[in-house]
């Protein structure tokens, strides 16, 4: 009685010890991180990025401010662009996301009516300074739609299909001609902040 339970437990640890040498595939769970990286799942979400098509200037975002309002920790900050007359354009002049505040919930991606913001797979974002270096500006956030297609092919296929069905193709040019109306109706007016 006394000692046998201990011995039984010790047999388990010895078994794992031996297994780690004779069959490391099962006996060792370590991922040697910087050299070896675990592949992230397709749906993995880390921090949001903005999508553009073709050129960075041609972004999908229309500065509608929905994501910034829905964002639970309020880490998105948008100022729409204004033309010479002071009229609000459907394009952000400033689009900042504070990665230090963002909690990767993915709500911005869900609520965006223009499929302009998505969650990235990039996770090696360590910085020495946490105030300014983790505040990502529009230039840092913009990534081509091909990037999105690469990291999340399934979602990309689905979203492109719905977009095609709605007849939205890319984003209309801000100047020249009437901009095509988005299918969504509840688009809020651009923020006046």
């Amino acid at each position, binding site marked *: 009685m006394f000692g046998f339970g201990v011995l039984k437990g*010790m047999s388990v640890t*010895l078994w*794992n*010890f031996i*297994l780690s040498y004779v069959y490391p595939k099962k006996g060792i769970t370590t991922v040697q991180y910087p050299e070896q990286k675990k592949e992230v799942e397709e749906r993995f979400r880390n921090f949001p990025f903005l999508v553009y098509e073709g050129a960075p200037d041609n972004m999908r975002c229309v500065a509608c401010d929905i994501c910034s309002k829905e964002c639970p920790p309020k880490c998105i900050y948008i100022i729409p662009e204004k033309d010479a007359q002071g009229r609000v354009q459907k394009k952000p002049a400033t689009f900042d996301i504070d990665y230090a505040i963002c909690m990767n919930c993915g709500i911005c991606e869900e609520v965006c009516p223009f499929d302009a913001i998505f969650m990235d797979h990039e996770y090696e974002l360590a910085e020495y300074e946490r105030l300014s270096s983790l505040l990502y500006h529009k230039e840092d956030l913009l990534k081509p739609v091909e990037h999105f297609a690469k990291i999340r092919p399934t979602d990309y296929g689905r979203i492109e299909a719905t977009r095609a069905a709605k007849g939205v193709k890319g984003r209309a040019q801000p100047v020249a001609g009437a901009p095509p109306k988005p299918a969504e109706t509840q688009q809020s007016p651009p923020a006046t902040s």
Partner: protein
Amino acid sequence: METSESIFVVIKKAILGFFHGFLPDWTVVIISILISVTAIVIFGPVTMMFLTWLERKVVGRIQNRYGPNRAGIFGLLQPIADGVKMLTKEDIVPRAADKVTHFLAPVIVVIPALLVFSVLPFGRGMAAVNLNVGLLFFLAVSTMSTIAIFMGSWGSRNKFSLLGGMRAVAQMVSYEIPMVMSVVPVILVTGSLSMVSIVEAQLGGKWFVLTPWGFFGAIVFFLCGVAEVNRTPFDLPEGESEIIAGFHTEYSGMKFALFYMAEFMSAFAIAGLTATLFFGGWDGPLLPSWLWFLVKSYAMIFIMIWFRGTLPRFRIDQLMGFAWKLLLPFALLNIFVAALWQMLPAPKNLIVSGIAEAVILVIVFFASRKDSPKKRTYVFAD
């Protein structure tokens, strides 16, 4: 074979012979002492460094991890990296601490840990000092570390340290007794306190562990030794989940490293002593004697690490109960069995002492049954 067997003895003789050529006799004696001292002072810390690596490696493997594998091949340079880190750390002394005691404790704790190596026979003719009271010297000196731990815990002026120090002393005093008692059979049979003659009595595979009393004596001694050096499952004085780090809570940097060093060196010393007393020391075929000693010692060390990788910790009252109610009676009765073994002629003694040991086991089993934990049944409700 012959050269590898006595390689260290030969080297020492060569050095001494070299100095004998031009130096007076008395300097040669001093140099001889110095060589032994240097050997031990180098061997101790190197062993400790290797043990820290080994422990992390083995525990890592037990836990399905690699353990240290970045610094050097197989992570063998990890202890050096650790040492550098320890050296460069800030040496913090709490404001309320008893400065002198706080400073002296880590220094003093290393001394007994190094001293005990002087009487261990590392191989044939390789005991630094063949003291005729070697075994008692070992036990006496190893009790000194209690004082150092006490100094550390008192000097830190920290309640957790104080609790740890109290636990350490209570534990070490309690386990001293069954430890000494479990050694008595060996002394009884060999009729000597000298480590060298104890090993010589076991030459040719007549290891004491192969006798009934020796087998259980070895278990008792080893468990007491594990408790004596505060290792799992008897690591209450430094139980990090309860009292953070016990007596060395307030130590950082090199002072902490010294405590660590002392712990590992004593662990090795206990492993070596178990090998010497019960497993024939450096006795063994083919391999050189010192290698045999190391193999046996490291086997003991492996068991200690294995314990560490498996077992949770005792509670203080259970720890005391284990020493006083189980190990001590067992060790005392073991003396009786060893006496039987020694008195009776050769074939009879094995049977008689074996039966006696079995009877003792049964008695202890039934006596401890009341206290021992039970298996339980559970009901399931819908």
